[in-house]
């Protein structure tokens, strides 16, 4: 996103994550215009330091579904960020919160769809189901 010319601000509890951001970059994250804040997503002070007040888009993609769902709702209701997206691994909850007006991305659902697609494709390329022997 940074390369496409957007302003990007990352918030992470672990200061080490900053190094990960710079993997493969020719300059430092900050030199390229990025912002990095150390803090917990549930702390409003940290969210504000990361610039949530000015954000056009807020993405919650920590490794915890619950944290993501809570922080996204804070971004929506308290800071009124126009576009909010949450990563939710649990397909049932991703679907329900989507219906409640929260944009959710469910990597589990995406992986299942891709795997199913791959299986179907393989099945289509090989022997078609019609050709399977009727009985062994």
């Amino acid at each position, binding site marked *: 996103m940074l390369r496409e010319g957007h302003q990007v601000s990352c918030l992470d509890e672990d200061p080490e994550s900053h190094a990960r951001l710079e993997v493969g970059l020719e300059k430092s994250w900050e030199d390229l215009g990025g912002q990095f804040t150390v803090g917990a997503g*549930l*702390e*409003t002070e940290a969210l504000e330091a990361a610039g949530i007040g000015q954000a056009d888009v807020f993405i919650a993609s920590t490794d*915890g*579904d*619950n*944290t993501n*769902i*809570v922080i996204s*709702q*804070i971004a929506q*209701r*308290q800071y009124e960020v126009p576009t909010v997206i949450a990563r939710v691994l*649990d397909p*049932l*909850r991703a679907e*329900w919160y989507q219906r*409640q007006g929260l944009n959710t991305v469910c990597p589990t659902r995406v992986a299942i769809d891709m795997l199913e697609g791959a299986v179907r494709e393989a099945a289509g390329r090989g022997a078609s189901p019609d050709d399977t022997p009727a009985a062994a």
Partner: protein
Amino acid sequence: MYIIVVGAGKVGWNLARELLDKGHEVTLIESDRRRYLTVEQELEHNISYGDASELWVLERAGIQRADMVIAVTGDDEDNMLICQVAKEKYLVDQIIARVNNPRNRRHFDLLGIKPSVSATDLILRLLEHEVPEYGLVHLLDLQEEQLEIIEMLLGKDSGVTGRRVGDLQMPEGSLLISVLREGKGFVPNADTVLQEGDEILAVLDPGKEEDLKALFGPEGNGSNGSNGASGE
């Protein structure tokens, strides 16, 4: 009543036991396998194993017919979302959430999770009761109703001792409701004369504490409470 309690820590386990003793139907849900096995030895079929932030675990526990869901895990996000889903998806009548970190309370409020209970706040409240900072103790906050009830001890230097209640100019939005004297409580009338050592109970609109302190406190003169800052 059918009650689902989430989290079988000390709070959840004891709560479930007491609710069962009172004759309620209870399902306790615990996500840690070892903890589950420990508690299961006592509560048997009244405890279920699983992560209650997953919907199917709640459904298996019969959340559709639950009258109340109480979330007392050690994780505030879990407690918030379990209650949110219980209330908004499964239309459970009553929810109660535990707040572990008092700083998260505003998030519970933001998501409409009420009531929420914080042990830290309760202890602070108790401490305040034991060691009143200004001699004024919050007894009850009725947040929804926008009222609070306070208690105040009239010291030797209180400006109102020896005065008739009818002569006090109570700040607008406050009402003297009771006087505790020598271990007995009574409802004062206009002719009641306040004494040193009386404890008064008053109901007031939020934000009127300073006015009341000005009236009943050391420098009180019964006139008004425009001086908001507490005196030395």
